[in-house]
Protein backbone atom coordinates (compact mmCIF):
# COMPACT_ATOMS: atom_id res chain seq x y z
CA UNK A 1 0.00 0.00 0.00
CA UNK A 2 1.35 3.45 -0.93
CA UNK A 3 2.20 5.80 1.94
CA UNK A 4 -0.46 8.43 2.53
CA UNK A 5 0.16 12.06 3.45
CA UNK A 6 -2.09 14.33 5.47
CA UNK A 7 -2.02 17.88 6.76
CA UNK A 8 -4.02 16.98 9.91
CA UNK A 9 -3.92 14.14 12.40
CA UNK A 10 -6.15 11.24 11.39
CA UNK A 11 -8.11 10.67 14.56
CA UNK A 12 -10.86 13.08 15.48
CA UNK A 13 -10.20 15.50 18.33
CA UNK A 14 -13.46 15.59 20.22
CA UNK A 15 -12.05 18.25 22.50
CA UNK A 16 -11.50 20.54 19.50
CA UNK A 17 -14.79 19.59 17.85
CA UNK A 18 -16.91 20.12 20.93
CA UNK A 19 -15.25 23.45 21.72
CA UNK A 20 -16.12 24.74 18.24
CA UNK A 21 -19.56 23.19 18.28
CA UNK A 22 -20.67 24.62 21.61
CA UNK A 23 -18.94 27.88 20.82
CA UNK A 24 -21.18 28.09 17.75
CA UNK A 25 -24.15 27.58 20.08
CA UNK A 26 -23.15 30.78 21.82
CA UNK A 27 -21.73 29.33 25.03
CA UNK A 28 -19.01 31.77 26.03
CA UNK A 29 -16.92 29.40 28.11
CA UNK A 30 -15.39 26.21 26.72
CA UNK A 31 -15.79 22.98 28.68
CA UNK A 32 -12.83 22.21 30.92
CA UNK A 33 -11.81 18.64 30.10
CA UNK A 34 -10.03 16.57 32.72
CA UNK A 35 -6.26 16.61 32.34
CA UNK A 36 -3.75 14.73 34.45
CA UNK A 37 -0.01 14.50 34.21
CA UNK A 38 0.39 11.54 36.55
CA UNK A 39 -1.45 8.29 35.94
CA UNK A 40 -1.94 5.51 38.52
CA UNK A 41 -1.18 1.94 37.53
CA UNK A 42 -2.12 -1.37 39.18
CA UNK A 43 -1.05 -4.82 37.98
CA UNK A 44 -3.02 -8.06 37.93
CA UNK A 45 -2.52 -10.01 41.12
CA UNK A 46 -3.20 -13.41 39.57
CA UNK A 47 -3.24 -15.03 36.12
CA UNK A 48 -5.97 -13.68 33.84
CA UNK A 49 -7.56 -17.11 33.53
CA UNK A 50 -8.27 -16.96 37.27
CA UNK A 51 -9.56 -13.38 37.25
CA UNK A 52 -13.13 -12.22 37.70
CA UNK A 53 -13.64 -9.35 35.28
CA UNK A 54 -16.17 -6.53 35.61
CA UNK A 55 -17.68 -4.17 33.04
CA UNK A 56 -18.66 -0.51 33.37
CA UNK A 57 -20.87 1.34 30.88
CA UNK A 58 -22.26 4.85 30.45
CA UNK A 59 -25.61 3.43 29.26
CA UNK A 60 -28.62 3.03 31.53
CA UNK A 61 -31.86 1.10 31.71
CA UNK A 62 -34.50 3.10 29.87
CA UNK A 63 -36.88 3.09 32.83
CA UNK A 64 -34.32 4.87 35.00
CA UNK A 65 -33.60 7.71 32.56
CA UNK A 66 -35.38 11.01 33.11
CA UNK A 67 -35.72 12.07 29.50
CA UNK A 68 -36.72 15.60 30.42
CA UNK A 69 -33.44 16.16 32.24
CA UNK A 70 -30.75 18.16 30.51
CA UNK A 71 -27.95 15.84 29.43
CA UNK A 72 -25.10 15.76 31.90
CA UNK A 73 -27.12 17.61 34.54
CA UNK A 74 -26.40 15.06 37.23
CA UNK A 75 -29.86 13.50 37.31
CA UNK A 76 -28.53 9.93 37.02
CA UNK A 77 -26.99 7.83 39.76
CA UNK A 78 -24.39 5.07 39.38
CA UNK A 79 -25.90 1.58 39.49
CA UNK A 80 -25.11 -2.14 39.52
CA UNK A 81 -27.31 -4.64 37.69
CA UNK A 82 -27.25 -8.23 36.46
CA UNK A 83 -25.53 -8.77 33.12
CA UNK A 84 -28.43 -11.06 32.19
CA UNK A 85 -30.81 -8.11 32.50
CA UNK A 86 -28.79 -6.09 29.98
CA UNK A 87 -28.91 -8.69 27.22
CA UNK A 88 -31.98 -7.05 25.69
CA UNK A 89 -30.02 -3.81 25.27
CA UNK A 90 -29.59 -0.60 27.22
CA UNK A 91 -30.72 2.98 26.68
CA UNK A 92 -28.23 5.56 25.40
CA UNK A 93 -30.17 7.77 22.99
CA UNK A 94 -29.62 10.66 25.39
CA UNK A 95 -25.84 10.29 25.17
CA UNK A 96 -23.61 12.00 22.67
CA UNK A 97 -22.61 9.61 19.89
CA UNK A 98 -22.79 9.49 16.10
CA UNK A 99 -26.44 8.63 15.51
CA UNK A 100 -26.15 9.49 11.80
CA UNK A 101 -23.50 6.88 11.06
CA UNK A 102 -24.19 3.98 13.37
CA UNK A 103 -26.56 2.49 15.94
CA UNK A 104 -26.37 0.72 19.30
CA UNK A 105 -28.84 -2.10 18.65
CA UNK A 106 -26.04 -4.66 19.15
CA UNK A 107 -25.11 -4.68 22.86
CA UNK A 108 -21.66 -6.11 22.21
CA UNK A 109 -20.64 -3.00 20.26
CA UNK A 110 -20.53 -1.05 23.53
CA UNK A 111 -20.87 -3.58 26.36
CA UNK A 112 -19.25 -6.90 25.36
CA UNK A 113 -21.04 -9.18 27.81
CA UNK A 114 -21.48 -12.00 25.30
CA UNK A 115 -17.93 -11.75 24.01
CA UNK A 116 -16.48 -11.84 27.54
CA UNK A 117 -18.62 -14.84 28.43
CA UNK A 118 -17.15 -16.57 25.39
CA UNK A 119 -13.65 -15.73 26.65
CA UNK A 120 -14.64 -17.23 30.03
CA UNK A 121 -15.90 -20.40 28.29
CA UNK A 122 -12.58 -20.63 26.43
CA UNK A 123 -10.63 -20.23 29.68
CA UNK A 124 -9.02 -16.93 28.65
CA UNK A 125 -10.50 -15.21 31.74
CA UNK A 126 -11.72 -16.80 34.96
CA UNK A 127 -15.20 -15.34 34.67
CA UNK A 128 -17.28 -12.30 33.85
CA UNK A 129 -18.90 -10.95 37.03
CA UNK A 130 -22.64 -11.51 37.33
CA UNK A 131 -23.17 -7.77 37.70
CA UNK A 132 -22.06 -4.89 35.51
CA UNK A 133 -22.08 -1.22 36.55
CA UNK A 134 -23.36 2.00 35.05
CA UNK A 135 -21.85 5.42 35.58
CA UNK A 136 -23.38 8.71 34.40
CA UNK A 137 -21.56 10.91 31.92
CA UNK A 138 -21.49 14.04 34.00
CA UNK A 139 -20.26 17.54 33.23
CA UNK A 140 -19.06 17.75 36.81
CA UNK A 141 -15.64 16.18 37.46
CA UNK A 142 -16.39 16.57 41.14
CA UNK A 143 -19.53 14.42 41.00
CA UNK A 144 -17.72 11.78 38.92
CA UNK A 145 -14.67 11.67 41.17
CA UNK A 146 -16.26 12.06 44.57
CA UNK A 147 -19.63 10.35 44.16
CA UNK A 148 -19.61 7.99 41.18
CA UNK A 149 -16.08 6.58 41.23
CA UNK A 150 -16.18 5.57 44.94
CA UNK A 151 -19.55 3.91 44.34
CA UNK A 152 -18.19 1.89 41.40
CA UNK A 153 -15.19 0.86 43.53
CA UNK A 154 -17.56 -0.27 46.27
CA UNK A 155 -19.53 -2.40 43.78
CA UNK A 156 -16.27 -3.87 42.47
CA UNK A 157 -15.13 -4.77 45.98
CA UNK A 158 -18.50 -6.34 46.81
CA UNK A 159 -18.18 -8.49 43.69
CA UNK A 160 -14.52 -9.27 44.44
CA UNK A 161 -13.37 -8.22 40.98
CA UNK A 162 -9.77 -8.69 39.90
CA UNK A 163 -9.90 -6.26 36.96
CA UNK A 164 -12.37 -3.87 35.34
CA UNK A 165 -13.10 -2.98 31.70
CA UNK A 166 -14.65 0.47 31.27
CA UNK A 167 -16.42 1.35 28.04
CA UNK A 168 -17.54 4.96 27.56
CA UNK A 169 -19.88 5.35 24.61
Amino acid at each position, binding site marked *: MAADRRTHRS*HVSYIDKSRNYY*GAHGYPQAYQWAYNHDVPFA*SLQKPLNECRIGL*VTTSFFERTVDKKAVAGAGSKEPYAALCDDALGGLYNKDLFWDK*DNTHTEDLD*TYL*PINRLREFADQGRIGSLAERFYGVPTDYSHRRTSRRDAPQILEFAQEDELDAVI*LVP*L
Partner: protein
Amino acid sequence: MSLVARHLEEAGLPTVVMGSARDIVEECGVSRFVYTDFPLGNPTGKPGDAEMQSAITGTALDLLERAWEPRTTVQTPFVWDAAANNDWREHFMKVDDSNRDALAAAGEQRRVAQASVKAEGRGRG
Protein backbone atom coordinates in the same frame (compact mmCIF):
# COMPACT_ATOMS: atom_id res chain seq x y z
CA MET B 1 -15.37 7.38 32.75
CA SER B 2 -11.60 7.83 32.66
CA LEU B 3 -11.82 9.47 36.08
CA VAL B 4 -13.51 6.31 37.38
CA ALA B 5 -10.74 4.15 35.88
CA ARG B 6 -8.15 6.28 37.65
CA HIS B 7 -9.98 5.94 40.96
CA LEU B 8 -10.05 2.13 40.64
CA GLU B 9 -6.35 2.04 39.76
CA GLU B 10 -5.51 4.19 42.77
CA ALA B 11 -7.29 1.60 44.91
CA GLY B 12 -5.13 -1.15 43.37
CA LEU B 13 -7.66 -2.51 40.86
CA PRO B 14 -6.30 -2.89 37.31
CA THR B 15 -8.43 -1.36 34.56
CA VAL B 16 -8.60 -0.98 30.81
CA VAL B 17 -10.69 1.62 28.96
CA MET B 18 -12.11 0.78 25.52
CA GLY B 19 -13.10 3.82 23.50
CA SER B 20 -13.10 5.92 20.36
CA ALA B 21 -12.55 9.43 21.76
CA ARG B 22 -8.79 9.18 21.90
CA ASP B 23 -7.97 12.71 22.94
CA ILE B 24 -10.48 12.84 25.80
CA VAL B 25 -9.22 9.58 27.34
CA GLU B 26 -5.53 10.33 26.86
CA GLU B 27 -5.78 13.88 28.21
CA CYS B 28 -7.44 12.55 31.35
CA GLY B 29 -4.74 9.88 31.53
CA VAL B 30 -5.52 6.20 32.11
CA SER B 31 -3.40 3.13 32.70
CA ARG B 32 -4.51 1.09 29.68
CA PHE B 33 -6.54 2.19 26.66
CA VAL B 34 -7.80 0.24 23.64
CA TYR B 35 -8.53 2.79 20.94
CA THR B 36 -10.66 1.98 17.92
CA ASP B 37 -10.92 4.70 15.29
CA PHE B 38 -14.69 4.52 14.81
CA PRO B 39 -17.55 7.01 15.02
CA LEU B 40 -18.67 7.32 18.66
CA GLY B 41 -21.16 4.58 19.53
CA ASN B 42 -19.42 1.25 18.87
CA PRO B 43 -16.13 1.29 20.79
CA THR B 44 -16.05 -2.52 21.07
CA GLY B 45 -16.75 -3.37 17.42
CA LYS B 46 -19.13 -3.00 14.51
CA PRO B 47 -22.76 -4.11 14.88
CA GLY B 48 -23.23 -7.74 13.89
CA ASP B 49 -19.50 -8.46 13.66
CA ALA B 50 -18.83 -10.81 16.57
CA GLU B 51 -15.39 -11.66 15.25
CA MET B 52 -14.30 -8.01 15.36
CA GLN B 53 -15.90 -7.54 18.79
CA SER B 54 -13.89 -10.52 20.06
CA ALA B 55 -10.68 -9.15 18.57
CA ILE B 56 -11.14 -5.72 20.18
CA THR B 57 -12.23 -7.14 23.55
CA GLY B 58 -9.32 -9.60 23.35
CA THR B 59 -6.94 -6.69 22.93
CA ALA B 60 -8.27 -5.24 26.19
CA LEU B 61 -7.53 -8.57 27.89
CA ASP B 62 -4.03 -8.60 26.37
CA LEU B 63 -3.40 -5.16 27.85
CA LEU B 64 -4.52 -6.25 31.30
CA GLU B 65 -1.94 -8.99 31.14
CA ARG B 66 0.93 -7.32 29.36
CA ALA B 67 0.97 -3.54 29.86
CA TRP B 68 3.80 -2.68 32.23
CA GLU B 69 3.32 1.05 32.64
CA PRO B 70 0.52 3.64 32.57
CA ARG B 71 -0.68 5.48 29.43
CA THR B 72 -0.40 2.30 27.40
CA THR B 73 -2.59 2.86 24.34
CA VAL B 74 -3.12 0.26 21.66
CA GLN B 75 -4.95 1.23 18.47
CA THR B 76 -6.86 -1.69 16.95
CA PRO B 77 -6.37 -2.22 13.19
CA PHE B 78 -10.00 -1.70 12.18
CA VAL B 79 -11.31 1.07 9.93
CA TRP B 80 -14.93 2.11 9.78
CA ASP B 81 -15.37 2.30 6.02
CA ALA B 82 -12.31 2.03 3.88
CA ALA B 83 -14.05 3.56 0.86
CA ALA B 84 -15.33 6.73 2.53
CA ASN B 85 -13.45 6.79 5.78
CA ASN B 86 -13.42 10.53 6.29
CA ASP B 87 -17.08 11.35 5.82
CA TRP B 88 -18.12 10.57 9.38
CA ARG B 89 -15.23 12.57 10.77
CA GLU B 90 -16.23 15.70 8.87
CA HIS B 91 -19.93 15.28 9.49
CA PHE B 92 -19.93 14.87 13.28
CA MET B 93 -20.39 18.16 15.19
CA LYS B 94 -19.87 20.05 11.97
CA VAL B 95 -19.79 23.83 12.13
CA ASP B 96 -19.78 25.76 8.85
CA ASP B 97 -21.76 28.43 7.02
CA SER B 98 -24.55 25.98 6.26
CA ASN B 99 -25.51 25.53 9.93
CA ARG B 100 -23.95 28.39 11.89
CA ASP B 101 -27.22 30.34 12.28
CA ALA B 102 -29.17 27.22 13.19
CA LEU B 103 -26.65 26.27 15.90
CA ALA B 104 -26.74 29.77 17.40
CA ALA B 105 -30.56 29.63 17.47
CA ALA B 106 -30.53 26.16 19.05
CA GLY B 107 -28.13 27.41 21.73
CA GLU B 108 -30.37 30.36 22.51
CA GLN B 109 -33.42 28.09 22.72
CA ARG B 110 -31.58 25.78 25.10
CA ARG B 111 -30.50 28.61 27.37
CA VAL B 112 -34.09 29.82 27.60
CA ALA B 113 -35.24 26.28 28.50
CA GLN B 114 -32.50 25.93 31.11
CA ALA B 115 -33.39 29.28 32.65
CA SER B 116 -37.01 28.21 33.00
CA VAL B 117 -35.98 24.89 34.60
CA LYS B 118 -33.89 26.82 37.08
CA ALA B 119 -36.71 29.26 37.80
CA GLU B 120 -39.03 26.34 38.59
CA GLY B 121 -36.44 24.93 40.99
CA ARG B 122 -36.08 21.66 39.08
CA GLY B 123 -32.38 22.06 38.46
CA ARG B 124 -29.78 20.71 40.83
CA GLY B 125 -28.04 24.06 41.05
